[in-house]
């Protein structure tokens, strides 16, 4: 672990002397990309971070939203890509642990977990299969043991992640507004380290996350201990109830170095600590090692001497280790001692604030030609193509994944995983809806429109459950930022997200940047992952089971936008074409109309149209409801297009509404009044998924058969290395 020479001379000039070896370690940890955001921070400021419901307080590691009646929801997103790529089980599990502690550190109880997973091609790549299986097991074992439901996420496979893994984890918390920790500290307060003991594992993790994978740092393996984490959650919430916490921070990347410097800097205090006081699990750890160890399941709490007794009692009751490692001073310095000897003494603002960079950016040359479409071989049998798509890893049901996650514990889960967004009930009678979405295939072709699309898709999923988007989390994952072409794609994505957030007045309440995601074949595709949180005042009426004679209505235009679609990439093996573009005005109109249809109880179910296009979205409705549907492609609103484009284009802002015949005219009237593009395109019944062009049937697929393929493909691939057959 080291500083670049430019950074070293800067450190020297900022402290006016040569740093000690321990100081060097501390600063290197804190100035790593992972902890300091040095490449991205300047630009992240463009995102709108305030709003009516947003509560901004110093020192929070998660975003806070006021959901009324004295309650708040907290949210955060993190990734654990590098650790998961080398140790998928432990890497993914400790990723969950980290984001949960961010939620906890605001003083709220974690109530839901989301996971966004990306791997190489599991149909060909054994390594991808191994990574996938173990990542899912890691998340399951950790979240299940904590008793926090994992209620949503996504899984995607793309060759750009060969021998690599993107593991994004988001979490939501809930609590009383008055229970929020108001981070504050004064001279004489004491600093308590609570939780797992400090060891050599995970040394250098944040530095590791900021390097390309080549360096393969063995010591960065972290062993998860969800049992301790569960006890920490209960202990911390008890201490919160008893008002024993003045300030709190979780230990994540950079270990004690980051936690101490950041909390001191945020609260404008000084902290003096003694490494000898830290409870460790191995003897003879050096001060440097103690300061940068990333041992998991630890929290830092600042409290007063008078409250220590009570805090100790709670720790004992929950059988978790703790140590009083230091105290608060008024000098804005972090001083690290071992007994009498001082090993580091640095101004906290120097440690906590690396000099921010303004890296050069240039448009990648591949983008000049990527939208040109190849001439593709014509499709002779659409039924076969759709069947193939329904069993493809990206489109097949993810039940093998979420079936391993306890998504019911906490008894809040009103809408379970498997539809669009999941929905939780809150104690004030309101309902919270959330979903995370990414789309590297779109983002590769057009980083700006692709990112906007992810944002819109997540909103759409939330809207499908009758909730209004109130906050957004962004997670920006890219390759090496020192490559101007990569940095350009980062900026473009960020600008797209900013535009959308501002237009829709959806504040960004948190996020994370993960750079240096590179495989031996090069950088990953730009992979922003967006989480959207929505709120509904009453329990939404959707989804109800679709029955014989129900009507299918599509809202939104279908356009010639197959770039990055599953149809191009999976069926034709073609990367390129026109990326779907969100028309902000249409998007807003469609969202509003769909919400009002749901609120007026005019829809039995609402499903968004995304991966795989209209053909897949209709099939999903049919398969989950176990009923057929006859769809007329000629009626689909939008550009005049040939059948494959109508079927498989992944244009945004589209929703599939179902309604029974009694309510059809009311629904039509509402949509007309709102001036959205929509059409009644089909009727449910019988047992086949049927698409007609003019009067000719071009797809006819048995529901039971396709459902079997869709449900079992993924597990067959993972467990037996082959797809489900009919």
């Amino acid at each position, binding site marked *: 672990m080291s500083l670049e020479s430019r950074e070293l001379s800067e450190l020297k000039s900022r402290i006016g002397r040569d740093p000690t070896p321990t100081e060097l370690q501390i600063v290197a940890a804190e100035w790593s990309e992972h902890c300091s955001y040095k490449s991205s921070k300047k630009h992240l400021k463009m995102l709108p971070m305030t709003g009516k419901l947003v509560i901004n307080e110093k020192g929070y590691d998660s975003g806070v939203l006021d959901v009324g009646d004295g309650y708040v929801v907290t949210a955060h997103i993190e990734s654990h890509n590098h650790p998961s790529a*080398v140790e998928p089980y432990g890497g993914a599990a400790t990723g969950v642990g980290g984001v949960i502690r961010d939620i906890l550190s605001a003083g709220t109880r974690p109530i839901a977990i989301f996971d966004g997973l990306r791997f190489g091609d599991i149909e060909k790549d054994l390594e991808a299969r191994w990574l996938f299986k173990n990542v899912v097991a890691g998340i399951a074992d950790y979240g299940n043991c904590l008793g926090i439901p994992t209620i949503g996420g996504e899984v995607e496979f793309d060759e750009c992640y060969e021998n690599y893994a993107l593991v994004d984890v988001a979490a939501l918390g809930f609590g009383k507004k008055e229970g929020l920790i108001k981070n504050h500290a004064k001279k004489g307060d004491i600093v308590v380290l609570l939780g797992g003991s400090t060891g*050599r*594992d995970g040394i250098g993790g944040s530095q590791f996350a900021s390097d390309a994978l080549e360096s393969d740092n063995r010591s960065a393996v972290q*062993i998860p*201990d969800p049992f*301790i984490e569960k006890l920490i959650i209960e202990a911390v919430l008890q201490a919160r109830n008893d008002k024993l916490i003045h300030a709190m921070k979780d230990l994540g990347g950079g270990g004690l170095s980051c936690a101490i410097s950041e909390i001191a800097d945020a609260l404008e205090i000084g902290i003096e600590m003694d490494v000898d006081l830290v409870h460790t699990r*191995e003897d003879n750890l050096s001060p440097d090692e103690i300061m940068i160890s990333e041992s998991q399941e630890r929290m830092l709490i600042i409290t007063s001497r008078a409250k220590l007794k009570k805090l100790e009692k709670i720790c004992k009751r929950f059988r978790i280790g703790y140590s009083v490692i230091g105290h608060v001073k008024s000098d804005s310095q972090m001083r690290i001692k071992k007994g009498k000897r001082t090993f580091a003494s640095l101004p906290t603002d120097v440690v906590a604030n690396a000099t921010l960079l303004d890296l050069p950016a240039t448009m990648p040359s591949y983008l000049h030609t990527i939208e040109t479409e190849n001439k593709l071989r014509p499709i002779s049998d659409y039924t076969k193509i759709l069947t193939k798509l329904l069993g493809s890893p990206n489109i097949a049901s993810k039940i093998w994944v979420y079936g391993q996650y306890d998504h019911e514990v906490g008894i809040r889960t009103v809408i379970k995983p498997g539809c669009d967004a999941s929905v939780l009930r809150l104690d004030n009678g309101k309902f919270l809806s959330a979903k995370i979405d990414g789309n590297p295939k779109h983002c590769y072709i057009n980083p700006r429109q692709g990112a906007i699309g992810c944002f819109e898709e997540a909103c759409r999923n939330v809207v499908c459950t009758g909730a209004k988007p109130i906050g957004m989390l962004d997670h920006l994952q890219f390759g090496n930022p020192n490559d101007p072409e990569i940095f350009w794609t980062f900026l473009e994505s960020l600008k797209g997200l900013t535009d959308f957030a501002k237009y829709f007045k959806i504040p960004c309440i948190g996020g994370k940047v993960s750079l240096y995601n590179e495989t031996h074949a090069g950088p990953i595709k730009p992979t922003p992952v967006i989480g959207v949180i929505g709120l509904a005042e009453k329990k939404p009426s959707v989804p109800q089971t679709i029955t014989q004679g129900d009507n299918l209505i599509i809202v939104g235009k279908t356009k010639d936008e197959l770039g990055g679609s599953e149809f191009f990439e999976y069926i034709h093996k073609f990367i390129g074409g026109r990326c779907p573009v969100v028309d902000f005005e249409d998007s807003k109109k469609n969202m509003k109309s769909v919400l009002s249809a749901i609120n007026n109880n005019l829809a039995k179910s609402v499903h968004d149209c995304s991966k795989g296009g209209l053909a897949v979205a209709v099939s999903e409705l049919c398969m989950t409801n176990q009923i057929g549907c006859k769809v007329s492609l000629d009626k689909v609103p939008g550009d005049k297009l040939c059948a494959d484009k109508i079927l498989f284009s992944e244009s945004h802002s589209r929703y599939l509404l179902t309604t029974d015949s009694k309510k059809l005219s009311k629904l039509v009237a509402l949509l007309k009044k709102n001036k959205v593009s929509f059409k009644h395109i089909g009727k449910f019944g019988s047992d086949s998924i049927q698409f007609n062009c003019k009067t000719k049937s071009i797809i006819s697929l048995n529901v039971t058969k396709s459902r079997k393929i869709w449900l079992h493909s993924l597990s067959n691939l993972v467990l037996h290395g082959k797809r489900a057959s009919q």
Partner: protein
Amino acid sequence: MPTFIVHVIIENKPGISDPEGETILNDLVLKGTHKTVSKIKTAKMLKFTIKEKDKKTAQFTVKELCDDLRIYNPLVSKVTVDVFEATV
């Protein structure tokens, strides 16, 4: 060809913590009457029954198989492979 029994023991490398062993020690064993135990480490064991021409080949084959199939992650775990003649 003779039959061999091959024991593969997979455990966390030294220095890597073993939360399960610690819990068994602290919350079960030390709460009982057996205070002479100072440490417990957990491991996983696979017992292979394999037909190979000799002991050495049996050992080699099983080790290779565990590596190939990624039965363990060498970053976290170490394996010990012991071969025994099958007592038929």
